[in-house]
């Protein structure tokens, strides 16, 4: 491009724009006459116009595409737009099967299941619907030892008493068995 432009000779400054318009035939009749008059007298501007004739057609040349290209171009564009639309509203495909008669059918089924569940569950909704798990503090589930500790905590509070009772009972059992032995010995 630069090489092509380098080929252009510079014209008279005040005529440069008019010469381009003259080349394209886009100036008025008066201008055309004025430019023609100038060109007959100015060598530089004649060379400039010749260069325009040589360079501009090369720059404006567009690549010719075969008709088959334009036929498939339209089809491909439509297909790409449809694909883009589908990707944007992907969730619609989930709703498609639920349209029409399926909506009331599904509603009726859900209602029936709920009523049957309530009747057979004797109003105990908790047994019918699984309750969500409670929020368990991290301290409890940190490890199994902690969990064991918290489940045994009330026992630990009365551990002394329980041990005393256990000891007393053991003593009683010992006394009882020794008396039985003594009685058997006497008999």
């Amino acid at each position: 491009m630069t090489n092509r432009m380098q080929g252009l000779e510079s014209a008279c400054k005040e005529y440069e724009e008019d010469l381009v318009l003259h080349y394209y035939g886009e100036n008025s009749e008066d201008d055309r006459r004025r430019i023609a008059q100038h060109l007959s007298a100015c060598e530089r501007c004649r060379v400039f116009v010749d260069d325009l004739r040589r360079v501009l057609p090369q720059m404006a040349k567009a690549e010719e595409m075969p008709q088959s290209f334009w036929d498939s171009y339209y089809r491909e564009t439509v297909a790409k737009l449809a694909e883009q639309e589908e990707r944007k509203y992907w969730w619609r495909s989930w709703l498609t099967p639920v349209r029409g008669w399926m909506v009331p059918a599904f509603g009726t089924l859900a209602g029936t299941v709920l009523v049957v569940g309530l009747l057979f569950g004797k109003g105990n909704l908790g047994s019918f619907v699984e309750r969500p798990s409670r929020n368990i503090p991290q301290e409890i589930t940190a490890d199994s030892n902690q969990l064991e500790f918290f489940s045994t905590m009330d026992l630990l509070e009365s551990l002394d008493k329980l041990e005393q009772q256990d000891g007393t009972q053991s003593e009683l059992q010992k006394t009882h068995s020794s008396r039985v032995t003594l009685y058997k010995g006497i008999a």
Partner: protein
Amino acid sequence: MKTRIALALVFGLFLPLLAERAIGADDRWRNLSPREKDRVQRNYQRWKSLPPRDKEHLREEWNRYQRLPKDQQDRLRQRYNDQRRDRRED
């Protein structure tokens, strides 16, 4: 470099052990009955509000309980459950 490798190895061995304990606790929690879960939650709430001295005492009792022979632990637990059931029936 050697220290880093040693640390990585120690943590690499230590972390799975911790994870195993936590997963074990989770499984154990899932297996508890709703009543047991209630009791654990209640005890935990109570534990939070205890003064530090009582907390320490309970920890000591817990350690002592764990050192008891298994049969004695079972006996004490059985006795405790019996007494609680009796209290509830009264």
